[in-house]
């Protein structure tokens, strides 16, 4: 391990321990680590954006490659700076309107297709897949019953009583199972992060284990 690697790893380990110290109680080491993280993140992001956006997409193309057509988006982009004076603040609306218009135009149709139409089609076609065994059929029934009952639960035009109430109740159970699965995965995720830090401390820093 080179000297720079050792210093970097040791600093990372010290700050990991400083953040862990919050589990005991709030303390100056934790506060220092927290503030340093915020400062470093902002500095790093500014540096990255400066090089990857400003230098790569404005300075180099315009001044080195003479792509003067880029002055048009740059011109509209400069309107974002209108916020510096109350009389020019309205200029911000122009680039925002352009971004929103283009973004919505592209996004809405494909997002609808992706998250609603294709999902709906595959839920309807769930029994038409080839080579389904008994277990696949049970899963397909559960899927259809789950989707149907959960949608009924969120259907508020009818009172949830009688058959509708009964189906909505089934929908609640499906939703609760879904939330339970989500919560279980959240626990798994958080534990994974802790394990990751422990492996870093024992393997990369202390070299206690290989």
């Amino acid at each position, binding site marked *: 391990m080179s000297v720079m690697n050792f210093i970097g790893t040791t600093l990372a380990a010290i700050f990991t321990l400083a953040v862990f110290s919050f589990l005991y109680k709030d303390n100056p080491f934790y506060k220092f680590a927290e503030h340093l993280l915020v400062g470093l993140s902002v500095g790093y992001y500014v540096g990255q954006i400066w090089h990857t*956006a400003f230098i790569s997409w404005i300075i180099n193309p315009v001044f080195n490659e003479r792509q003067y057509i880029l002055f048009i988006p740059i011109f509209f982009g400069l309107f974002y700076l209108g916020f510096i004076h109350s009389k020019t603040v309205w200029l911000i609306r122009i680039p925002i309107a352009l971004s929103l218009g283009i973004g919505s135009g592209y*996004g809405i149709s494909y997002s609808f297709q992706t998250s609603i139409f294709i999902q709906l089609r595959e*839920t309807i076609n769930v029994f038409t897949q080839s080579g389904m065994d008994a277990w696949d059929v049970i899963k397909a029934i559960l899927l259809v019953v789950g989707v149907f009952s959960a949608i009924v639960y969120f259907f508020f035009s009818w009172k949830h009583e009688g058959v509708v109430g009964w189906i909505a109740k089934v929908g609640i159970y499906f939703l609760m199972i879904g939330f339970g699965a989500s919560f279980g995965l959240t626990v798994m995720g958080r534990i994974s992060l802790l*394990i*990751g*830090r422990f*492996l870093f401390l024992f393997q990369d820093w202390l070299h206690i284990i290989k």
Partner: protein
Amino acid sequence: MNFFKWLSNIDRRWIYLLMAVVISIPIFIRAPVKVKPSPDVTMLYDYLENQEEGMGVLLSFDYSPDSLAELQPMAKALSYHALSKNLRLMGIALSWPSAAGLGIEAIKSQVDIINSEVLKDLLDSAEQNEEVKTYAAEKKLASEGLRKEILYVLIAKLEKDKEIEERYSELKGVLEKARISSEIVTYEKEVRLIGRDWCYFGYKPGYTQMILGMGTDIATTLSTDYKGTSLLKYEMFNSPTEKMKNYDNIAVCIDLAAGGSLGSWLAFVNTKFGRPVATGVTAVMAADYYPYLQSKQIIGLLNGMRGAADYETLIGKPGRGLSGMSSQSAAHILIIIFIILGNIGYFLGKKGGEK
């Protein structure tokens, strides 16, 4: 009853300490754990296994260092698999500027592993050379560090990387004098080279525009790699017959995500361009993406550290994913015990009229 009352009032710091102990013990005793890869992961593995050599695989690093424990092992396992199958690996960071470093670390580490495997004999003979031994003694380099430096110099010769050659100019001279560097040419087709077998684009701002632009022309949209080198200088992007023009040349786009980035990959790459998409996500988000697996909009899903462990098992290269599985199981058992005890205590307390 008194035990449960005591348990319900216990200082939470004891629970933290117990959790730390429970997680640490399996790491230290290296508790063996066997993982049976889930079908969601195996689907992606099989898909890559069946790809023709030379097809592209695009990894999108859409996570920041706080998700490193779950997603970095996946990135490494997927990179190793793609490179070892002679698929052309590309990486990009679109959501988080801080992912730029994680992406190159994941890809380069696997390129180095594969190149070390390919050049094992050459590295062994170089290490035994007297002049190289003298160099290592002067620089106080251990075997691992020396082999890494020799590897960098040899690969730099093929990649014509002046920066690396200058950085290790002394070792370069030693290897040339010992006639070791001339032998690297015989391995040229087997080693993985930047611009021919892999490429990392780094962080590119403008998320949706980049995804859409790559559907038309990757080199024009992204223009440079992470080092600022024009993509058109690389064989991958300028070869008249085998270039990576757009998604048509990419077998699968794999989004490694710690946020909502998969939506854009699905909407544009899958729905608009009709190309396969797969994902590796943090466990927290995984439940949201199973519907897309059921509808076959994604061809594989790696779920948190477990997903990484599954993939490491499939490629036969244990890494950080598998290392954490025994601790994960131990922690889950502890949490289940706490949930059971907590509920018993709650109901006994309720029965006894306590609030």
